């Protein structure tokens, strides 16, 4: 192809963008995204309203606080989200978004194939554990070490997901029940293996002079940290290639679901398992495959979380829940908000990170940062409701068609 042609092509591509944007707002995509956008709007309005009520209560002296909340500053901080400190906070947002996007993809992909993978937390823990073992125990040169950690995390998560699929397709155990159990098993297995594989940090007790075990692991070898080349761009410390991996995963999942025979076949099973069986698809294998892919994404999220400087896994349940498992559960919310579509999930993950960072900054205006969690909760409730509402409307529509079918002899179901 001549350079001229390439330029022409690029030109044509850009010419399409305005049309594409317009098409988005009037088209089916926008209509589909509507419930999520409404939910986000409702959540933000609720959050701002709560801030207002707190401000009012302080003003009329119902509450007595040392520092009065600053209403407008607080709202501005909240809405500024990842832009609060320019590139730095934006980088931090991307850093936090990466695992959220990946677990969102994990749950969303399972949804698309007709499975409810509530086991993302367990798969994530398992992925993180594998990355710790490889990252702490092995010493290999840099690119290979962190790559191996990622692969190990994916493989471990994948295995953990596969077991759930296996239980479902062979023993007919409902995946939700199996997932919940597997979450607990993963957590306790992790605690056990921190001891079993000598992963806990050893230090010399300054009083007794003896070697003691810390309630947390060693940090990973420096060669196992994810590259932080992006840190220069974002003028910050935390951001690493995790976000690039997450974006790549979004693209890959989009292609898998929409362009491949694998996606076609798994989606067919998701919409109608009976029909996929009728058509000769191997539904048992498909269930195991779906769960393995879903687990792979969650395991990758776990590896990305742990593969940063100074990150440790603690040996107590509370820290395990808040630092690892909760991100797996966030995946359910994100999948819901992103309508299980890879691109939607990507945006939902970014949004959740954005609003949480906004939450981090509102304490500068004397509000508590937990308000961000209130807002996200409201958003999730609304998006769950909007899905329910949508389904309700669909069912009414369907009932109408069914009613119409009554007059055709009642045989059409």
């Amino acid at each position, binding site marked *: 192809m001549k350079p001229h042609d390439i330029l022409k092509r690029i030109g044509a591509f850009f010419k399409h963008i305005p049309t594409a944007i317009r098409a988005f707002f009037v088209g089916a995509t926008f209509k589909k995204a509507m419930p999520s956008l409404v939910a986000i709007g409702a959540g933000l309005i609720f959050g701002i309203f709560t801030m207002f009520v707190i401000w009012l209560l302080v003003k009329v002296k119902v509450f007595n606080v040392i520092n009065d909340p600053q209403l407008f500053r607080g709202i501005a901080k909240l809405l500024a989200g990842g832009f609060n400190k320019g590139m730095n906070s934006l980088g931090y947002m991307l850093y936090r978004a990466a695992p959220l996007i990946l677990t969102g993809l994990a749950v969303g992909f399972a949804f698309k194939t007709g499975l409810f993978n509530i086991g993302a937390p367990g798969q994530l823990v398992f992925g993180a554990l594998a990355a710790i073992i490889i990252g702490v125990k092995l010493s290999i040169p840099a690119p290979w070490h962190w790559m191996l950690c990622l692969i190990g995390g994916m493989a471990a998560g994948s295995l953990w997901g596969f077991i759930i699929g296996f239980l479902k397709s062979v023993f007919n155990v409902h995946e939700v029940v199996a997932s919940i159990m597997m979450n607990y098993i993963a957590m306790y297995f992790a605690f056990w293996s921190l001891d079993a594989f000598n992963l806990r940090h050893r230090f010399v007790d300054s009083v007794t002079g003896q070697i003691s075990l810390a309630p947390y692991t060693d940090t990973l070898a420096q060669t196992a940290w994810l590259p932080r080349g992006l840190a220069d761009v974002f003028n910050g410390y935390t951001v690493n290639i995790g976000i690039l991996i997450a974006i790549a995963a979004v693209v890959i999942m989009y292609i898998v679901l929409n*362009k*491949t*025979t*694998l996606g*076609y*076949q798994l*989606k*067919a099973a998701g*919409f*109608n398992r*009976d*029909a*996929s*069986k*009728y*058509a*000769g*698809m*191997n539904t048992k294998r498909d269930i195991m495959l779906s769960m393995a892919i879903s687990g792979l994404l969650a395991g990758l999220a776990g590896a990305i979380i742990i593969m940063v400087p100074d990150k440790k896994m603690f040996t107590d349940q509370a820290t395990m829940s808040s630092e690892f498992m909760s991100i797996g559960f966030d995946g359910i919310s994100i999948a819901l908000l992103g309508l299980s579509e890879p691109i939607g999930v990507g945006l939902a993950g970014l949004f959740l990170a954005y609003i949480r960072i906004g939450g981090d900054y509102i304490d500068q205006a004397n509000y508590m940062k937990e308000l961000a969690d209130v807002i996200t909760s409201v958003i999730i409730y609304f998006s769950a409701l909007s899905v329910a509402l949508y389904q309700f409307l669909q069912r009414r529509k369907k009932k*109408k*068609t069914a*009613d*119409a*079918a*009554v*007059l*055709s*002899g*009642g*045989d*059409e*179901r």
Partner: protein
Amino acid sequence: MPYIIEMLDICKNFGTLKANDHVTFELKQSEVHALVGENGAGKSTLMSILFGLYAADGGEIRYKGEKVEIKNPNDANRLRIGMVHQHFKLVDVFTVTENIILGNEDTKYGFLTKKEARKKIVALSERYKLTVDPDALIKDISVGMQQRVEILKMLYRDADILIFDEPTAVLTPQEIDELMITIRNFAKEGKSIVIITHKLNEVMAVADRCTVLRKGKCIGTVDVKDTTAADLAEMMVGRKIIFTVHKHPANVKDEIFRAEHVSYFSKEKNRMTVDDVSISAKGGEIIGIAGIEGNGQTELVDIITGLKRQTAGRFTLKGVDITDASIRTKLETGMGHIPEDRHKHGLVLDFNLAENLVLENYYLPAYQKRGFIKFDAVDANAENLIERFDIRSAAGVATVVRSMSGGNQQKAIISREISRDPELLVAVQPTRGLDVGAIEYIHEQLLKERDAGKAILLISLELDEIIDLSDRILVMFEGRIVAELDPQKTTFHEIGLYMSGSKSEVKTDEAA
């Protein structure tokens, strides 16, 4: 004679669909009034309005000349209107008595007084010769008896206006005869009966008057004694229709498919639902499998096609042993399957038409390259089939199948199965719920396949369809094949006797 019910100028819309468009229907005291029309003509809707299941959008209902509002079935009960629905509304694990009193229970100090009720039921059943066992569980009795339970339910509530929605669809010819006599008796006693049907011979046999609906409109009401079945058919369809299927004599070739002593044990029903069945299907013939619903036809199809695994027996297709083959292997060996339930098995309703038309073939090199679907080829295939089989849809290949009409959904399945060019085509109720035009078309397609040398297993509950299309008829009763009949020589009556188990040949063992 005064009208007991007048439904004047009734309108009912479902979305943009006019289900009833200014329909007027008048029922006289103690007459049998048939309500006929094609599927989708609005018969059931009209009667559902009378029974209070739907509210009409316009028009009024009069009972003995007075305007009444029927908002729900309780209002209908108060006016002594009863209805037997096409799909029975019975509780499987309750006894006959419990089902009849359900919703109308007598109690004493808060306890049920079933004895009184049972007495009344026995008395009613003797009086109208509606034999039932008042203590049997619904799940243990035959469909015919279930229908009698439904009828007794109406009588128990002292209904004077009885509505029957397609009452003969699930009955054997003998049971149909009995039902007709019962219905005539009701009329003699002064009850008024509405019978919804699309079978014109029943109209001629039992009805006094007949109202014809077409596409939601009332075409007219006629006295049955002044008309003929052909006239009624013309009113129904709007054109003359040919009742017989044109069929060349069969040109039977070599054996294509063979089932040897196959059985299936159903865990849910705890019995053999397919019991030692042997079938040999040859190229160029249509084998019709007749039987009352629930006599093992569904399970037989499931084990032939691989949806379920047989308990015993062997299958051979084109000389290849496919006894333990997967569904895909069976499809690849040369089997096609038009499933009984097109929504459950036949289609992925949320996929578009093009995607549905490659449901079994998406993995073949024609439609994929290194795991990536060739959407151009998929769409081209769909366009070709839409053209060839005249599938109508709003947005062509991209139409979401859920939005298509039942007839076109069925055409899509049939086009997909036929285009795969299978040697054995298993067609289960291929015309269920479709209108006359679509039925004619599908019958033509099946005959074309037969004439092209394919073997076809036709499983249907419609005896007309079986007799019209088949070259041989096998009758199933309680999981066994009880007769092999020649459609040229047999009669409805004879098939009916086998279907109900009152007659049985020595078991044919043709595969041996």
